[in-house]
């Protein structure tokens, strides 16, 4: 069983134009930054990306956006990208927005063999337009469908050579579910360790979901909104 690849370039060697790719992270927190940079360098085109956000202008997925690599995006919040806004208005990109809980549950469903489920979220709003709605026990729900992808790019704090992953703090976010919902899941980690070094009770993503793993070349881990308080007081 050999899942370890040399680097980000090797990890994405066979990602073709037109792929659907899930990309972990919330804002810039927990994004697979090395894989994104590699994909920008490779110049793969015509991508459908599935990610909660689209980075910021000039960083993270903003790189792919600026390079015109993204044809269609599915997410829940894109407020940090002036460029995206412009591209949507100019119809250079298709954008599908979903409530964040529906978005995350659709990904979980994709990985868990559930083709569709009912949620109360969005009933009575435009999110429910053209969707099946239904009464269960006197409350109305909207039917939503699973999301799947060809590739998932996820970022973990630590991973072993069999792909068992551990995330750190809120950098976990969408990574664990995306890892389950793609044909080929590629994990980049800050620390690649030997099999057996991770406590089996503390594994967040079991290795079964990970096809390729490598230690990221460089972690900038950029902070989007640095908010601090004075050392004295508070």
């Amino acid at each position: 069983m050999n899942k370890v690849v040399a680097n980000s370039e090797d990890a994405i060697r066979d990602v073709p134009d037109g792929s659907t790719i899930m990309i972990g992270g919330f804002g810039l927190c927990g994004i697979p930054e090395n894989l994104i940079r590699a994909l920008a360098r490779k110049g793969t085109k015509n991508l459908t990306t599935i990610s909660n956000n689209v980075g910021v202008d000039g960083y993270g997925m903003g790189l792919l956006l600026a390079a015109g690599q993204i044809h269609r995006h599915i997410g829940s919040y894109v407020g940090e990208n002036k460029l995206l806004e412009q591209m949507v208005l100019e119809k250079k990109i298709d954008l599908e927005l979903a409530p964040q809980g529906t978005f995350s549950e659709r990904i979980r469903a994709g990985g868990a063999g559930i083709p569709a489920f009912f949620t109360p979220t969005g009933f009575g709003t435009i999110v429910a337009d053209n969707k099946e709605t239904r009464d269960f026990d006197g409350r109305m729900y909207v039917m939503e469908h699973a999301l799947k992808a060809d590739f998932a790019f996820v970022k973990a704090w630590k991973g072993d050579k069999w792909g068992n992953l551990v995330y750190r703090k809120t950098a976990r976010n969408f990574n664990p579910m995306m890892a389950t919902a793609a044909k080929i899941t590629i994990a980049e980690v800050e620390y690649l360790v030997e099999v057996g070094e991770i406590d089996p009770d503390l594994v967040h993503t079991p290795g079964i979901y990970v096809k390729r793993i490598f230690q990221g070349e460089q972690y900038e881990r950029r902070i989007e909104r640095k908010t601090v308080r004075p050392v004295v007081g508070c």
Partner: protein
Amino acid sequence: MEIIAKDLEANDQRPTTMSKPAKDLDKRERIVKRIARELRDGFYVNLGIGMPTLVANHVPSGIQVVLQSENGMLGIGPYPIEGQEDPDLINAGKETVSEMPGTSYFSSTDSFAMIRGGHIDLSVLGAMEVDEEGSIANWTIPGKMIKGMGGAMDLVASARRVIVAMEHTTREGQPKILKKCTLPLTGSKVVDTIVTEMAYIRVTPTGLVLEEIAVALTFDDVQRATEARLIPSPTLRTMEA
């Protein structure tokens, strides 16, 4: 679905304390203080981006509440001390935060399972419009700018109690509490309470019941600033500061 929206107060993710003029700050302070009095010991609470976040500064002494962040955290603490900020530790507004004793982290999917499953005692969030049925609009203005709804639709649909925290009227003085929302909804018939600098209003099946009025204002003052008809509560009283 393609969505066009304008820069929204509810989605404005700049720390409000740094970007609002002093008069607004005072209004906001009164709103969040009043809402903080609704907190109960042991509550698990989600505070929306912007003004609602400030409720955390006024938790009554002697009670413990746990703040949830929909990006996967229970137990949000204050902003970190300079130099201790951690890129892996942010709130739903993407601000660096700290953790409290008893914190737990989980995936976004688990976080929204928690929200949708009705486990959040209280959700406080901003709004552009609320109407007399308790419907709320806070995420988009068609034809303007693109942002996305984030987690707000899930929160309003499933939190046990939803409180809207907002200024009573727009900057231009137009009512924000309407007979019927005109903007695309975030949730239909979901709001329980509306707290503004002018009033504390309960949404009931028969309409909006005015429970409290800010000091020095009359029922008519509030009604004039409100498009929806207000029903004076039998126990109508002055809002505590």
